């Protein structure tokens, strides 16, 4: 087995005495696509929030590239190489798409306020570089023609993609996608799937929260299932889909596997 890129060991967190995530362990290897699924309120987004430093876990440890990150601030974690999108899109609506992506490059832009005020060579060189990079990323997601639109004016599907572009722009190796297909029609979802595969082919690692089982079964290398804050299953898509505990967790409903 390869050395994991991300290794979560027994994290727990509770709010006001109610446990939201309990002893969850999870690992991801480089260049994998891993999904985290579970019914509403299972604690998936909470895991993301702990991972990105929004919440401090009550116990447990998180290692990223062998380095412990669970007590670090969100800014530091971004710099280390983990970036995310949000369930309820959080783009900078009054900024152009390209500006949103440029904000993503923030931690890796090093010129000072002095440089930008006096337009030094360093500023121009770096700014040109970032703009170039931003457009390259927008190309990956097929948004290069919409770079000058305001993020808030984009159609829903494109907003999701713009968030992914922004996350990639941070230079992160591990991208956390929080329900990227939510609210998309089947055609948009297919596009998104291709997009995610393409991003993986570029060397990124992806952790995905998703409700759409078609997406999850189609794209994941491995799946973790969370119910009521606890991990109830993990493994290859096929195995997870046929796991009786998982089926029960989804209110006895059937999982629709395949296309």
């Amino acid at each position, binding site marked *: 087995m390869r050395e994991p890129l991300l290794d979560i060991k027994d994290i727990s967190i509770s709010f006001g005495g109610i446990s939201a995530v309990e002893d969850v362990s999870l690992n991801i290897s480089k260049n994998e696509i891993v999904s985290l699924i579970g019914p509403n309120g299972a604690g998936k987004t909470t895991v993301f929030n702990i991972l*990105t430093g*929004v919440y401090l876990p009550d116990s447990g440890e998180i290692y990223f590239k062998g380095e412990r990150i669970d007590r670090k601030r*969100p*800014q530091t974690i*971004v*710099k280390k190489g983990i*970036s*995310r999108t*949000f369930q309820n899109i*959080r*783009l*900078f*609506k*009054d*900024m*152009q798409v*390209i*500006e949103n992506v*440029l*904000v*993503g490059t*923030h*931690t890796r*832009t090093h*010129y000072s*306020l002095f440089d*930008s*005020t006096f*337009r030094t060579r360093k*500023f*121009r060189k770096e*700014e*040109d570089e970032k*703009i*170039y990079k931003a*457009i*390259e990323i927008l190309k990956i997601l097929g948004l290069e023609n919409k*770079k*000058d639109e*305001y993020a808030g004016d984009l159609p829903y599907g494109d907003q999701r993609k713009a968030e992914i572009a*922004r996350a990639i722009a*941070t230079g992160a190796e591990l991208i956390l996608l929080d329900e990227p297909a939510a609210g998309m029609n089947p055609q948009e979802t297919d596009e998104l799937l291709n997009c995610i595969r393409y991003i993986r082919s570029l060397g990124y690692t992806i952790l995905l929260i998703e409700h759409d089982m078609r997406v999850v079964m189609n794209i994941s290398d491995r799946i973790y299932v969370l119910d009521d804050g606890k991990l109830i299953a993990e493994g290859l898509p096929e195995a997870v889909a046929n796991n009786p505990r998982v089926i029960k967790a989804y209110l006895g409903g059937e999982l629709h596997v395949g296309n």
Partner: protein
Amino acid sequence: MRDKKISFNNLEKFLYQPSVFMILTGAALAVLLIVPWLGLNSYLMNIVVKVAIYITLALGLNILVGYTGLVSLGQAGFVAVGAYATTILTKVYGWNFFTSLIVCVVLAAAVGIVIGLPSLRLTGTYLSIITLGFGEIIRTVIIVWEPLTNGPMGIRGIPRPALGGITFTMANSGMYYLSLLLMLLVMLFCRTLVRSKTGRALRAVKGDETAAVMMGINVTYYKVLAFVLAAVISALAGSLYSTQLGYIDQNTFTFDMSTIILSIVILGGMGTLRGMVIGSIILILLPELSRSLTDYRFVIYGLILILMMRFRPQGILGWKSRLPYPIRKTVIERISGPQNQTADDGETNHA
């Protein structure tokens, strides 16, 4: 509504064509330079200088309100810091005006940090209240610190700025050019700020603080920075303002002053530079020109705030620019190859 938007954008596209933009900027500069020869009487010239100073003040507040989304209700406090620092240094200690500006900048930056620090913990309205409290406390400091500020008696006979034997007065239009210079420099600064890492970080903080944090932006740092920039700009304008007035006391820097500056930003259009100009012209020039309105001046300011918020919260000249993001030629060539470069060449910045 829709038609108006489109026409604004067409107009904008036209105005910001590189050639048109250059010609217009040149023309505007030329007009500004010859203003003193237009034969305006000294009363009008005083108002023109006041407008320039208020544009500068609005530009400062705009960094807070327009870019970063922090509403400061205590700008008058920063203005007072600058005004008193320069006045005391020049009048009491005989410093040169321009040397005293250095102290003024450092002091204002320090005050800006102190006032910005609460943004570590507070957001929105609470932060605004802190700034308001700051504005009031500064006035108390002025009253109480009598040995330095001469207390409620105020300071009279503030000397005009002078450099190398030339005194900048209203009569020789030195004051006018000085305030114009400061205004233009600040404007230029704001323009470069928006199109930089710093400006984007500030606007990201306004757009969505949590998302900004998740992009690795140190939100606290940028909020404090916004306060520092606003404080320094306001203080510089305040220094100039005090030499124009020739007399200051604690009642020069009241909440009303902060309200006027805020009204300018809101009326003109937060987050824009053009808005600060039009806002100052309307709110400073008009009441002076029609003296009969003086009694109702602040009633009108109030109504402007209410009506703008209700019907055009983005301000008179606030609209979403439809211009493409300025990208330098070399970058475009790198992206698309030199054969099919498109319309957008050179640095077509826009405010």
